[in-house]
């Protein structure tokens, strides 16, 4: 039986002909997408002047659902792609939305260098502690001890604290939220989009299918409940004090919000200085 779907007020931001999306039930990515679209709506951003760039993975599919210029690139390379796009076309607002494995394992080098250069882009890094698309392998953010398909006896690697990495590399805006903090996340995305320079938001997201069920949280609601019970908002805290450990509190909030010249601005300065003879 065909069921006619009713139009949703947010449909204009989506490529409706590509819905339903590929994500599992209980996945946190829908909340991230929703928060992002509401942020765009509230800021009244011109969709013709917005580019969304993704890498590969579950989060990498976000670009394809948003009704704007959207680029689904190779694994790990969303940030350098976005760097080229922003430099060549500074009128565009450029946002990278990708996952923890894409941005911080295979693409980790690009993340730190884009932050260092202060490229004027916003990076939303969705951290679900594992590689979801490929079946739940160990990632650079998998907490110590967590079970994944490639750490069947429990993870023996120390994970990245993404916000600490972003801060150390030079990001001008750094925040962390979980998908439980939908409104705060949306507000934070608005701040980041308005920020000149390299802004980074880490979103802790549920992945019941490939992570939760191997780590005693088989239901997405278990993860949401965990976020509610363990998240502590600490704005302005030194991100090095916000490590993520299994079963421990998750420190969320806006950690960094500073000003410094962007790479685009530096390039324009340089061009003025080097006028052709």
């Amino acid at each position: 039986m065909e069921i006619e779907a009713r139009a949703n007020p947010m449909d204009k931001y989506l490529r409706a002909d590509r819905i339903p999306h590929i994500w599992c039930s209980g996945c946190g990515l829908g909340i991230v997408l929703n928060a992002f679209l509401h942020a765009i709506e509230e800021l009244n951003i011109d969709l013709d002047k917005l580019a969304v760039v993704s890498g590969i993975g579950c989060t990498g599919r976000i670009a394809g659902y948003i009704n704007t210029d959207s680029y689904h690139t190779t694994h790990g390379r969303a940030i350098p792609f976005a760097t080229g796009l922003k430099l060549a076309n500074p009128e565009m607002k450029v946002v990278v939305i990708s996952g923890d494995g894409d941005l911080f394992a295979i693409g980790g080098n690009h993340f730190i260098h884009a932050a260092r250069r202060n490229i004027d882009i916003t990076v939303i890094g969705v951290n679900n502690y594992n590689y979801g698309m490929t079946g739940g392998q160990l990632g650079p953010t998998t907490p110590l001890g967590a079970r994944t398909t490639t750490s069947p006896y429990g993870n023996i690697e120390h994970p990245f604290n993404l916000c600490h990495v972003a801060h150390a590399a030079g990001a001008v805006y750094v925040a962390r939220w979980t998908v439980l903090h939908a409104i705060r996340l949306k507000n934070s995305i608005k701040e980041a989009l308005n920020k000149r320079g390299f802004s980074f938001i880490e979103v802790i997201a549920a992945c019941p299918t490939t992570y939760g069920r191997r780590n005693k949280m088989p239901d997405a609601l278990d993860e949401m409940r965990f976020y509610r019970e363990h998240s502590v908002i600490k704005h302005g805290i030194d991100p090095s004090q916000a490590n993520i450990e299994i079963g421990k509190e998750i420190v969320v909030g806006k950690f960094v919000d500073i000003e410094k010249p962007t790479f685009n601005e530096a390039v324009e300065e340089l061009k003025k200085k080097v006028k052709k003879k």
Partner: protein
Amino acid sequence: MKKEIRFWNGSIAVSEGAIVAGCRFFAGYPITPASDIAEYMALRLPQEDGIFIQMEDEIASIAALLGASWGGAKVMTSTSGPGFSLMQENVGLAAVTETPLVIAEVQRAGPSTGMPTLVGQGDVMQSRWGSHGDYETIVISPSSPQESFDLVIRAFNLAELYRVPVIFLMDECIAHMSERVVIPPKEEIEVVERIKPNVSPEKYMPFQPVNDIAPMATAGMGYRVHVTGLTHNEKGYPMTTSPEVQEWMVRHICDKIRKNEHKIRDIEEYRMEDAEIAIVAFGIVGRSAKAAVKMARRHRIKAGLIRLKTIWPFPESYFESMADSIKKFIVAEINYGQIKLEVERAVHGKASVELLPKFGGAVHQPMEIYQKIKEVKNGN
């Protein structure tokens, strides 16, 4: 405007040619023997309202090119073998997303780290087959600073015309040798601009070819294009379980080049009018080969030279028809037999094809090629 005369090395010539062609974005990473190009672009692009950025590696460099090309710019990077190896995944992304870009690849002797400061021509196959899957590139090989200037303009034009990554395959010694370069008056230089859509966004199909090539809507034009490295349909939407769409897409990205091979083809023939033995060469070896042909002619041996200025798509039908009259080909290249295999394949057994290899680090001396001509002439 009058023509201008310069004394430039190949690295400067390729950079200036790129700027004339409209290149305003360069992302690169230092590597011997290609760094001179990046250094020169860092100096020149800000003067031309362009952007130079030194990226953290070659993977980032080509990814930035893709982004900038979709941002609307004409783009180039420079690299050498090891860096080119790192770029290959995104060469595939450029091929499948039909992104115009130019890679100036100054070859050094490989494999691996090899001989960083010395000549080699071992990247012929890499520039054709370096990424996974079926796709086509255009590969151009200059044999002088003059051609570095002239042909890189053509490289940009072809990249735009066919929406394809073009590899400008240079030799270490071409990049570093300085010679007279004549710059024609601006109005005599043909520069091809990107074909943009002229239909409304509702009607626009970003990957639907119009006369072989789809007009390209870059970021901010209001077409809201989705671009993906996944197998995609004319709309740009992923179709990852449809063998039909896969066939349509792969045929398209290959056939737009294959069926236009005769238009892309650029070959210099020297003393071929009555030749019985043909040397096939490209890049720097073309110059030694020309000297060898002159020696042979002085000794009344009917030798000629076929110099490939475009290597890929390979001019198969050209060689097949040449083999009607030429029965002996000698392929001189600074590798252990890459173009030789292509020539052999193209002549369909109608002629003998001999390899005269150099393994890297040195260029064939004219005398060596002449000796080979004599050998082949005498049937040894």
